[in-house]
């Protein structure tokens, strides 16, 4: 089982499973502690300059946008960031917060490539891009969530994606098959937006789960924002719906419309007009700055941000939600 190939990308977040275990033993209370706080408090407590951070699900879908904007507002620097992103990572790139990327996909989906990503990478502001597939980055979190140092995959083999990653190729000792080994990814901080949580952090999600299960179990600090805060009795009534148990969680933020301008399944649809405004303005650095001035720096908090759109628009988004039928 020799190493047949090693990707030449940097492991930008080295890991130590025994140290992670020790962290989980000493820094994560098993008691039901009230963790309800504001975006400001959560981000200032648990997101630090230089930390390795990730967001879930992505940009326009169940994304922790109120938290992502707060990260920009607090000007956290030199972030190392993983994964796929649309609006949330775009904001960070445009605001110059990002130093290194474990990148899978950053773009504007139907609206094409991301000018913010291009500017940040082509100018050298982002110092390095280590490449992974969407599957691979999630499996890296799944490895950490399982408490093991790596997971094998048949993705990435034979490609430049592997060459510019930090994966290693070996032969499976049972059947002789070649597989890529993906190193565990333990984030310093993760931001996840959910449908419902209690004040201790027990969370329920509706619709697709994206990679919430994996990311919540693969981070040292976890900030949850939730559309709704529910009594713990509601959690205990449906224990089979708990995707993220409280002991994984460090902060719970009540953020109605927290995914705006993205959508929230069964709660509200996406705000196409607001999305297009970012697409249009982010084409130039000046436009991106003007957008940030208006929607991030220019407001105190998430409520003031929502006030810029007004109740009629938000009601309209509720009307356009996906329904169970």
């Amino acid at each position, binding site marked *: 089982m020799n190493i047949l190939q090693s990707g030449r990308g940097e492991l930008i977040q080295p890991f130590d499973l025994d140290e992670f275990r020790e962290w989980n033993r000493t820094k994560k209370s098993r008691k039901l502690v009230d963790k309800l706080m504001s975006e400001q408090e959560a981000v200032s407590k648990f997101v630090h300059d230089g930390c390795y951070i990730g967001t879930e699900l992505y940009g326009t879908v169940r994304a922790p946008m109120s938290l992502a904007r707060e990260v920009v507002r607090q000007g956290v620097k030199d972030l190392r960031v993983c994964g796929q992103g649309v609006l949330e990572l775009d904001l960070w790139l445009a605001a110059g917060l990002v130093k290194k990327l474990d990148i899978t996909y950053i773009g504007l989906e139907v609206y094409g490539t991301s000018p913010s990503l291009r500017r940040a990478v082509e100018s050298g502001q982002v110092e390095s891009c280590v490449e992974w597939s969407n599957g691979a980055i999630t499996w890296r979190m799944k490895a950490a969530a399982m408490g093991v140092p790596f997971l094998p995959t048949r993705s990435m083999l034979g490609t430049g994606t592997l060459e510019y990653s930090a994966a290693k190729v070996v032969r499976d000792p049972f059947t002789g098959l070649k597989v890529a080994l993906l190193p565990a990814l333990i984030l310093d901080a993760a931001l996840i937006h959910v449908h419902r949580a209690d004040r201790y952090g027990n969370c329920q999600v509706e619709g697709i789960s994206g990679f919430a299960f*994996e990311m919540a179990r693969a981070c040292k600090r976890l900030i949850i924002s939730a559309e709704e805060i529910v009594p713990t009795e509601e959690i205990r009534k449906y224990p089979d719906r708990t995707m993220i148990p409280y002991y994984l969680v460090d902060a719970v933020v009540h953020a109605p419309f927290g995914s705006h301008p993205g959508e929230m399944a069964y709660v509200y649809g996406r705000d196409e007009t607001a999305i297009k405004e970012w697409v249009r303005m982010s084409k130039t650095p000046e436009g991106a700055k003007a957008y940030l001035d208006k929607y991030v720096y220019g407001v105190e908090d998430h409520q003031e941000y929502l006030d810029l759109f007004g109740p009629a628009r938000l009601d309209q988004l509720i009307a356009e939600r996906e329904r169970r039928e």
Partner: protein
Amino acid sequence: MSEQPYSKNELMICVAARLFEDGTTCFIGTGIPMLAAMLAAKTTAPNLVPIFEFGGMGAILEDLPRAVGGARTFHKGLAASGICDTMETAQRGFVDYGFLGGAQIDPYGNLNSITIGDHDHPKARLPGSGGGNDVGSSCWQTIAIMQHQKRRFVPQVDVVTTPGYLTGPGAREEAGLPRGTGPAYVVSTLALMDYDPGTRRMRLKALNPGVTVEEVVGNTGFDLVMPGEIGQNAPPSAEELRLLRKEIDPEGLYI
């Protein structure tokens, strides 16, 4: 043959839609593949099972999804799961087709969506490998959708983001990719291509209406394999156009 005027995108969507086989599972990405899947489901492939990478499986596509994680990707779906489950379903051999895009494609169907120029000091930073690499590794057959331009059909892609046949016959298997998988078609703005089974190189299969072989060759940066007989893609039928314009994309986002 329909005499109605139609756009290049409408034609691509129709050519792609006709490739869907009924009763198969298919990974669908944002944009053209979504429209093609919807058109196929309403015409020749009513039992098509669309799979979206972040968890939607078996949705009834009543309204055009705008994101691969949006609620429309699991609207009345049979399952709403997560990305590990969908990718592992593909890795287990349950996904028949995958639709892919890229900035560059080469004769072996390898795609690039990472960087143009040197990786570490790129001329252009593209979005990244995304789910494309997983789709190209694990689905049984992949179909690429491309603008047909010389700068996109290149002899060698700057980075292989998504594996096609890599360096030719046997190369996928040698790399460890699952047996029997690989690119099947390229749908471009000019023509439909498949791959020569012997050399695994891209082969012209059928021309779009009004397009000549010379035009295809002139817009391709490498030698296409030329078969004995070159087919013709039928233009969009009146019914296809009606479905596209009235039911699938009434807001005209793509067509």
